[in-house]
């Protein structure tokens, strides 16, 4: 582990701020081959590319030794627990932006930079926490962000660069904006509130008045303690009445500098560009202009890098159980979640007690994010090795609901309903059955066993192999847990492999848009229709059955009268004999 040194300089980039800027500042753009919206990804890449190169250029005297891009957590944060309406005024990300998050994260990795985020925390909190740690080690920081909320971090050895204005923030800028020096910014913000984040503040008090008050009393707490001294009647009254609001606001605007971060500072060490990785990404995204500027700086790609060879090897890897793991301890799930987050994709399969998703209980869940590697989490088996269902679901819920990580399934509508019944709403879903359907409707069936055989040349373990048949048939929950692991992990493994394969085929065949526009959105819509169901009039059906029965008997009587003997009308053979032999109606039309 390399130690952080005094002359190290960390560049911490507020990635989330960049995303929205890239999205709103640039015209929408879509990938030609499949219509994927890519405007924000493209803008983000250009900005990151420029920033990285500018920071490394000789005209910059404080070059980075460490570099990291930091993102908001996709879901609600701890601030919503403090104040329900925090950022409640913000609309959800636009439809054509949401699918781009995943690629933005990937673009950071493509530049060989760490992409950092943490559940429940905003990028600002992570930055504050890292700044704290970096300063403790005696090193220096440059924060790159146009967000005024980060100004409270301004202090010795911390620079803030505003990429929008192309300049470094000075103490003067802060005084101009908040009327106080950087160490009092929080107190002013707590009083004045912030309409863009829905931070309430104290009604009727703006930044100007707030600054005046804070300058006089020093801190918010001191001001609130001495509120009765204020001369202006109205101001005194609102301050006393809204004391709680001010204090809550302070908790909202204060950045957390002790977030439970899981990345070490030395992981941010600036690495050289991996040309193959970067070019491959830019090529896949069809960013041709960026690709050529990257090549002009970093040089031509190395011919057939070792990595590609690895990939080729990987592809040839046949399916085997070697890397199928049974989860024995709930904490083992963490590394699988981390894999999924890093890759941005995870194949998910549920094992259940019933084929009816509306009545199915979860027996186990399998995951796979790396080709050939899969795990099985048993939660409903009749075995001691089973993990506690609720704790497992609680652990998986954030991953399964995270819109930036793709959940890949084979007929995932089934899993969607099962999870929904267990309090989890899958987000960002992909379905290999539907991909196959778009590619090969009319050519073959689209169930997993068929697909594995056609596309992976692999015979899967069948459900029957596992539970037996006839009298010896057992329930899935009674299946030996090791065997269940092999079966379920294989399903996730096969699904993940099929996904990779189909994704490429859809692009090559230029029919990705059918899958994206006409199949994917239908999954959730139909799932909810199925969950809703429809009411049936049971009594009416009973009388209807009686009515039908009477009608049937009546026809039967007439038929027997004609045939002069009784026979089974349902049997085409007997019916035929009667018609042709007994009644001699040779040319009778079939109905």
């Amino acid at each position: 582990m390399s130690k952080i040194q005094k002359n190290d300089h960390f560049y911490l980039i507020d990635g989330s701020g960049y995303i929205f800027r890239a999205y709103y500042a640039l015209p929408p753009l879509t990938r030609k081959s499949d219509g994927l919206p890519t405007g924000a990804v493209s803008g983000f890449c250009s900005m990151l590319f420029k920033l990285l190169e500018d920071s490394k250029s000789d005209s910059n005297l404080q070059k980075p030794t460490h570099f990291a891009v930091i993102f908001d957590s996709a879901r609600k944060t701890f601030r919503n627990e403090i104040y329900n309406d925090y950022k409640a005024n913000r609309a959800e990300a636009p439809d054509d932006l949401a699918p781009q998050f995943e690629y933005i994260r990937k673009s950071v990795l493509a530049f060989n930079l760490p992409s950092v985020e943490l559940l429940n925390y905003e990028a600002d909190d992570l930055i504050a926490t890292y700044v704290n740690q970096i300063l403790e080690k005696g090193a220096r920081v440059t924060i790159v962000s146009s967000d005024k909320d980060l100004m409270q971090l301004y202090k010795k050895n911390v620079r803030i660069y505003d990429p929008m204005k192309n300049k470094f923030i000075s103490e003067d800028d802060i005084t101009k904006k908040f009327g106080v020096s950087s160490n009092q910014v929080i107190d002013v913000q707590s009083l004045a509130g912030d309409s863009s984040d829905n931070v309430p503040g104290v009604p009727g008090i703006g930044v100007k008045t707030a600054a005046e008050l804070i300058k006089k009393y020093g801190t918010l707490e001191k001001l609130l303690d001495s509120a009765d001294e204020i001369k202006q009647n109205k101001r005194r009254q609102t301050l006393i009445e809204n004391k709680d609001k001010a204090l809550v606001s302070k908790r909202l605007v204060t950045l957390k500098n002790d977030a439970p971060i899981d990345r070490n500072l030395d992981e941010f060490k600036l690495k050289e560009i991996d040309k193959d990785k970067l070019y491959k990404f830019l090529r896949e995204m069809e960013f041709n202009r960026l690709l050529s500027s990257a090549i002009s700086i970093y040089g031509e790609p190395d011919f057939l890098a070792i990595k590609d060879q690895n990939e080729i090897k990987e592809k040839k890897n046949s399916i085997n159980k070697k890397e199928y793991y049974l989860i024995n301890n709930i904490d083992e799930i963490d590394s699988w979640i981390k894999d999924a987050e890093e890759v941005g994709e995870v194949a998910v399969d549920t094992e259940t007690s019933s084929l009816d998703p509306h009545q199915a209980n979860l027996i186990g869940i399998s995951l796979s994010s790396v080709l050939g590697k899969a795990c099985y989490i048993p939660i409903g088996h009749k075995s001691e090795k089973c993990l506690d269902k609720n704790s497992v679901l609680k652990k998986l819920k954030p991953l399964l609901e995270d819109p930036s990580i793709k959940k890949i399934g084979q007929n995932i509508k089934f899993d969607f309903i099962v999870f929904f019944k267990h309090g989890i709403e899958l987000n960002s879903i992909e379905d290999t059955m539907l991909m196959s359907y778009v590619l090969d409707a009319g050519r073959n069936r689209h169930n997993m066993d068929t697909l594995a055989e056609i596309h992976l040349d692999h015979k899967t373990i069948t459900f029957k192999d596992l539970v037996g048949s006839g009298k010896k048939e057992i329930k899935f929950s009674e299946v030996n847990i090791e065997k269940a692991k092999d079966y379920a992990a294989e399903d996730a493994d096969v699904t993940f492999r099929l996904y990779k394969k189909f994704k490429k085929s859809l692009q090559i065949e230029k029919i990705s848009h059918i899958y994206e526009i006409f199949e994917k959105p239908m999954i959730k819509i139909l799932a909810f229709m199925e969950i809703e169901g429809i009411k049936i009039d049971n009594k009416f059906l009973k009388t209807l059955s009686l009515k039908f029965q009477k009608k049937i008997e009546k026809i039967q009587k007439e038929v027997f009268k004609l045939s002069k003997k009784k026979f089974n009308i349902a049997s085409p053979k007997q019916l035929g004999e009667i018609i042709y032999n007994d009644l001699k109606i040779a040319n009778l039309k079939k109905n």
Partner: protein
Amino acid sequence: MDWRQLSKLKNTYSDTLPEHINPITKRVHTSFLLAATTTGRLASSDPNLQNIPIKSDDGKDIRKAFIAEKDHILISADYNQIEMRILADLADVKELKKAFKNNEDIHSLTASQIFDVDLKKVSEDQRRKAKAINFGIIYGISQYGLAKQINVSNFEAEEFLNAYFGKFPEIKVYMDETIKFCRKSGFVNNIFGRRSHFISINDKNYNVRNFQERAAINAPIQGSASEIMRLAMIRLSKKLKEQKIQNTKMLLQIHDELIFETPKNESKRISKIIIEEMTSVAKSDQHSFSIPLTVDINIGDNWGTLQ
């Protein structure tokens, strides 16, 4: 045969539907199959709701068992003659397009064309025959099939078809081109670009080949109709979400028909939204139709009264 149909209805619906009632929700949760056809059309199972006969009174009786909750009502929204409209658009049939734009009765128009009579003088019988031909074309019917359908000799049926193709030459071109394309590539495209494969289109056996050819002619028409329905469902679900309408639910899709359940006092407002969204699919980023799409709305306590 009545007997066969009745016992099938009794076995698959009136006797068994109650078995599908979920003990907790007390409702029937059918399963929609996205990948069970070759055209993009949905199928459904447990129970299969897309197979209840439309025309017979007995089938209607089965539908009456599907009801709305108390103080609620069912809305059915049905695309009017969607497949004929698609054929007109897909094959660029000038006469049909004109008729749809002018909101004319398409079967009467067809009759007046092939029987060479004034539009106002078309008889019921002529209209019925024209209708059978129109539907026959969509499903790729042969002259023999048509002869049986409308109870005329094979010779007469052939004459009708010749007259039909004479008046709508674009349809003949469409059929020939589609088969030619399919023979070469093994698949056909619908309007939106979805492919349906027909692997036995070049089979040595005439019957197999013929069957595939008819299916290949039908697939782009049926498939495009299904795509339109999918787009409509996506639009509607988005709209309901945007307008925060939570007490109206989309329940069923049966080919060209959507069933909604909504509080009684909301039915007017909701119907308006449904019509608006379903007809607006005629113009989308994916395809702009040259003719309008129209939607018929029916409202009632049960599905049987909606037809």
